[in-house]
């Protein structure tokens, strides 16, 4: 298997896995869990950026999406409550 085909396979793999993470993050009523699924999606996207040969983006994206967005969300849900209301 040559390296170019491997790259393509990894791009497809990472984007396919990220779909599940996104859907779970949208549907989950527990906001902390949604933040963790969003972090999983960000990790997969960081991998995607890496394989798409954008190391600069990986460096800043990992910091922003894995590090600072979850901190913001955790800060928020610590103050506004962890669960979404059901059925309104």
């Amino acid at each position, binding site marked *: 298997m040559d390296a170019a085909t491997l790259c393509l396979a990894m791009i497809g793999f990472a*984007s396919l896995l990220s779909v599940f993470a996104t859907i779970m993050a949208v549907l989950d009523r527990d906001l902390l869990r*949604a933040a963790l699924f969003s972090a999983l999606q960000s990790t997969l*996207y960081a991998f995607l950026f890496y394989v*798409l040969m*954008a190391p600069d983006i990986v460096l800043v994206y990992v910091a922003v999406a894995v590090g600072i967005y979850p901190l913001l969300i955790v800060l928020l849900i610590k103050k506004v409550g962890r669960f*979404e209301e059901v059925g309104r």
Partner: protein
Amino acid sequence: MVGDPKTLVALIVLFSLYANLGASMYGVIARKNLVKKLICLTMLGDTVNVFAILVGYRLSRGGTPVPPVFTEWSKASEKLLANFVSRSVDPLPQALVLTAIVINLAVTIFLATLILYTHRHFGTVEMDRVSEMKKGELVDEVEVS
């Protein structure tokens, strides 16, 4: 046409990214909780950024593409530079996305502060509750005046 591995991968990637886009758009529009809206908004922005990078990617003929960083610099490396240009990916979308991510972050921090203030003011972050309370306040003001 789909049997070609490159086309197949391109289709998979496109549909996955569009599914992400649709799911997060649904979350931004239909979910009532402001924090959930914020999470979905960050995911929406990230997906669009991936699109921009994907447009800048390329399939190079001489092996895998390389990042747009010229590593073999010296005072006279003209031929190496030509080889590098023939294999590198597009730097412009990467620079734009770098900017976009940071601006996204700034806007998100500001939105988070606003959500915090909404909670301090109304005691809830559910949009339905907030609009009910706003209607109530409006009626109060009309009655007073």
